[in-house]
């Protein structure tokens, strides 16, 4: 039974992750009066990459070859540890929200190392920028999650969701809303969206994440792209489920799973729409303006925690 639960969540995460990218791309295209690629395009891309051959730099070491696996597996592990459609997540006891964030950091650590491995200046540039943005996003992310975890009295994500579900009046609590806003900014930064990074560009002056992957090809690239999509799904799930756990089932019955799934998809769709709006209505920020944006997130999260003293 437990195994089945884990497998179900794994399949859901693996299948859903690329779809979110497709949704966001389609949404952006529509807002820009383009028809855009189909929703399933990210799947075709992945399949194509899996089948392609690879070119690996002769300067690269074993770290370059191991990294895609570490990146993919940490992202997949994390997606098994968070509640998506039900709070009955057997693996949530392997680690709470702090472990989730640190496992993602482990994946990033290796991707940033691999970027330096090929002796390409682009890789170094991307690696340096990615670690910088991640570092300054981290305190805001932790603080906003702390504010929810403290209310719930737990860092176990299933417990957090259960506790928030029981106190639905919390949704209008100013602290809750402030923490949500902070986390949304962090989501934009962590998933490399405009205005922090542009996932659609390959211009050396502006790219952050893509610069790190420049030397990757074939199935290595497929693994990393999939990992990135999974990470995006995980962060979006955290955002929708720990702040607004409406519809998240508590048991493991077909009915609760179905409602959970529908609610989950609807919430993700809304969030993706918000991301589309932000991406379309903003220009990319200069790299050195990004800290300002993230300090806004930090202040918001801090206010969220201090809100019991203020309001």
């Amino acid at each position, binding site marked *: 039974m437990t195994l089945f639960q884990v497998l179900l969540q794994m399949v859901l995460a693996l299948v859903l992750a690329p779809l979110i990218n497709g949704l966001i791309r389609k949404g952006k295209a529509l807002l820009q009066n383009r028809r855009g690629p189909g929703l399933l395009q990210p799947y075709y891309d992945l399949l194509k990459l899996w089948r392609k051959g690879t070119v690996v730099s002769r300067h690269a070491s074993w770290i370059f070859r191991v990294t895609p696996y570490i990146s993919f597996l940490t992202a*997949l592990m994390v997606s098994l540890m968070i509640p998506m459609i039900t709070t009955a997540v057997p693996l949530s006891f392997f680690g709470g929200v702090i472990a989730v964030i640190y496992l993602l950091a482990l994946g990033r650590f290796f991707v940033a190392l691999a970027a330096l491995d090929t002796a390409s200046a682009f890789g170094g540039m991307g690696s340096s920028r990615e670690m910088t943005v991640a570092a300054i*996003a981290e305190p805001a992310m932790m603080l906003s999650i702390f504010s929810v975890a403290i209310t719930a*009295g737990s860092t176990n994500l299933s417990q957090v969701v259960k506790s928030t579900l029981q106190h639905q009046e919390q949704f209008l609590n100013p602290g809750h809303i402030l923490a949500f806003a902070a986390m949304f900014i962090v989501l934009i930064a962590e998933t490399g969206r405009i205005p922090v990074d542009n996932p659609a560009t390959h211009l050396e002056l502006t790219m952050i994440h893509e610069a790190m992957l420049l030397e990757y090809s074939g199935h290595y690239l497929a693994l990393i792209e999939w990992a990135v999509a999974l990470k995006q799904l995980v962060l979006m799930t955290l955002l929708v489920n720990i702040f607004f756990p409406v519809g998240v089932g508590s048991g493991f019955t077909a009915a609760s799973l179905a409602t959970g799934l529908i609610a989950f998809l609807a919430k993700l769709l809304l969030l993706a729409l918000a991301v589309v709006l932000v991406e379309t209505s903003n220009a990319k920020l200069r790299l050195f303006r990004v800290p300002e944006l993230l300090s806004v997130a930090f202040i918001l999260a801090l206010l969220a925690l201090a809100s019991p003293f203020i309001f």
Partner: protein
Amino acid sequence: MGLEQFAVHLLPISLWAYAVSAMASFALTRFPRMASLAGFSGAWIGALAGCWASFTFLSRGTSPAFTLLPAATPLVRFSIQLDPLAAFFTLVVSLLGLAISIYSYGYVTQYYGVKNVGSLVGFFNLLLLATTLIFCADNAVFLLIAWELMALFAFVLVVFEHEHPEARRAGMLYFVMSHIGVGCLILGFLLLFQVNGSFRFEDLHNIGAQLSLSRRTAAFFLFFVGFGIKAGVIPLHIWLPAAHPVAPTNVSALMSGVLIKTGIYGMVRVFFDFLTPPPVSLGLLILAAGSMCALLGVLYALVEHDLKRLLAFHSIENIGIILMGLGASLMFISFHQPALAALALVAGLYHTLNHACFKGLLFLGAGAVLHATGTRNMEALGGLIRRLPWTAFFFLLGAVAISGLPPLNGFVSEWLTYQALLQGFGATQVAVRLIFPIGGALLALTGALAAACFVKAVGITFLSLPRSPHAERAHEAPRSMLFGMATLGLACVALGLFPMAFLPFLDPVTQELLQQEISPQLIAGNGWMLTSLSVERGAISTPGMAALFLALLPLPLALWLVFARRGRHRVDETWDCGLDRLTSQMEYTATAYSKPLRMIFQAIYRPRRRIQADFAVSRYFTKSIHFESHIEPTFEQLIYRPVNRAILRFSRSVRRVQTGSLSAYLFYIFVTLLILLLWERTR
């Protein structure tokens, strides 16, 4: 003699092994090979005995107590008594001493015939001896004597390569700072002495309440400064990044791994054992100081390109993280939350042990790099993963551990710290509780910056192309060095994957200081899960994560088999934008890597740069460019230099009294005598 009785003799064996092998290596100075063999063998035998002794004590509680030398005066007793706290720190020093001694066989070969190896080995042993004595001493005078000896031996080792002016300067700085610290400690212990006229620890337990408020506050500050200097707490840290890198690497590893922990030991001993109950403000001060220390330490590490200096700054960072645990624990004691206090203390102590392991490992790795290339400058390294594959692997392991990434040991202790801080918010209602989540956020920032710093350190040093001929000609370290690193690497993995097996050994410590045994509450799921007091509040399972990783591994491998196996897999050049060939000059440098963070935190760094260009004909034809980039040593500039100047100015004005004429001096003596007599009269 049964094993039971034998265990009691282990600690004396360990101490005598250090002492005898030190004497042996001094005697064998003329035969460096023999000196190294005798000295380091004695060192690792002593360290092994020390490990065994402290483990036996922590698990069974049979306390060895004995007197080392006959008492010189009633106050000075050279008596030794292990208590749980002392045993834990003895374990830290012995574990690290064991790995470093083995490593040192190979490391000191480079000094044969060049330097006096006998004295290096001898003082290394004496340093281990003095450090162990600090932890085991059972009275304040003995502790101070051992403390002073440790400072002296460490000084000798810092200036071991005294032909470099840098080492002499660092040695002096260390010497001066260390004595300011000792001065504070002497004053502090004298304050405690006044309470019941004893320096013995058993008479000093819980005497905080008997001191008047002003004396207590004075004692707090004296001890904080005194121990803080040794621990390298910012702004008392300036000696640390100067002294640690210039010492021979085996000594640097010992200094960063253990010596600075004597400061932590002192703080725990005095603040948790003697000056109890602590006021809230003390915990708050230590927590705030720890957070700042952690953040500033990692920020300064980021802009460092000297591999060993970078690691030294990370020691400051980790001392900060340890202090966060201790500070939170003291606050919980004031809030009457004994279980939380024990959790925070365990977090701090576990990080102390973990830091000793991964920092020792990283220093040993840096030593292997130095041994192979002769340089500590990262900008001249690169590509070493091909030439030193094992060193690179161990260094990477240490880097992952120190960045607090799962599943290694740094993650476990940082997780415990997070949990203590998080639950602190609910422990009280006063607004002071905001410090806990802010501390947590700063810890998150510190962790992420540390990860950035170690991507830089590993990436620039070991990956891509070699940046100098030294790096091209590098060779793998000898086997003894690899074995030393492997020992610590194994410790990092074991302490990360199986904290549940180790944490019960901390129970006697928390029992002694806080009357709490919390490992039963921390361990759940048949010993596979680590909780923060209860499963509902949060749990992790590092073995579970590792198992899950392995269980999921077949998935991408299967996909590879199905789709990618038949593809064409080539090894070719890195994309070089159509140029002829990629050279090492085109790589990203360490300076460039930290540039974005240098700009973001420029309020702290205050970077300066100077560019000087020589032109031929016009501005467009540059002949040569000279580029300099510095960051301002803020603390030296803002605190130490003004103080230094003021002292010098004062000394100059006092010098007028020193006329050189004998009659004037006799006159001074006469006046002083008169004043003293008058004062005595009026009293």
